[in-house]
């Protein structure tokens, strides 16, 4: 932890990490004043991003870690998740709502993340993938503590 409004965790590439990330996101979003529906959306987006990091990025490799950072800013809640995988190929992600993909059993994670968050940035590199999720504050409930931009 390096900032009053920022908390970060370095976690193993396990399913427990996924559940822990989801629970932490839910708690922090709730404490930040988001409505219940937004809390659910934030928690689910974080879960999906954590699944991608653990499963697709790090491939459950015990030698690779997932770093998750939560920051409350005057724009809202910013969550950054980094893995140490090979880096996702954004061009290789098909639209899961296209008719030809509807009956596929995977490939909906990033689509759901984009559906639930206000801003999503995905930055793949050879050292891993970083995904930044932002949920804006509606009203003043979550903007009490201003953090540096």
């Amino acid at each position, binding site marked *: 932890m390096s900032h009053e409004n920022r908390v970060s965790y370095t976690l193993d590439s396990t399913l427990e990490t*996924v559940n822990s990330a989801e629970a932490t996101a839910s708690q922090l979003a709730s404490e930040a004043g988001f409505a219940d529906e937004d809390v659910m959306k934030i928690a689910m987006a974080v879960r999906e991003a954590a*699944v991608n990091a653990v499963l697709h990025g790090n491939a459950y490799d015990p030698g690779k870690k997932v770093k998750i950072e939560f920051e409350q800013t005057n724009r809202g809640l910013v969550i950054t998740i980094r893995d140490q995988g090979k880096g996702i190929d954004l061009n290789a992600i098909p639209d*899961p709502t296209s008719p030809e993909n*509807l009956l*596929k059993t*995977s490939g909906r994670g990033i689509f*759901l993340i984009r559906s639930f968050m206000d801003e999503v940035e995905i930055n793949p590199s050879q050292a891993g993938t970083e995904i930044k999720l932002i949920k804006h504050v509606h009203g003043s409930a979550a903007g009490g503590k201003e953090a540096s931009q």
Partner: protein
Amino acid sequence: MTMKSSTRQIDGVTIVDLSGRITLGEGSVILRDTVRELMGKGSKKILLNLGDVNYIDSSGIGELVSAFTTVRNQGGELKLLNLTKKVHDLLQITKLYTVFDVKDDETTAVKSFTK
């Protein structure tokens, strides 16, 4: 909360009452194993009661799709019953709501299966 599953029979239809979370890991595995077991026993009319399923992630959605196609490919029918608002909204967002046959009344759902 982990997922629980129990089955019952009404007029040749197997109703699977699910509760909890269908997520990557245990929940998805329970759903997959339950459907496989039913298919193995020859049950081809399956109604998944999701009334007490409060959470599904993308893996759980994938497992529902897998169950649907598995049953259909073997000449059976799989329908969904009693979606919670969260699950209903998820199926709408992913455009799967019209893929699945979704019912909100058990009696009507049972009668809707091919005789």
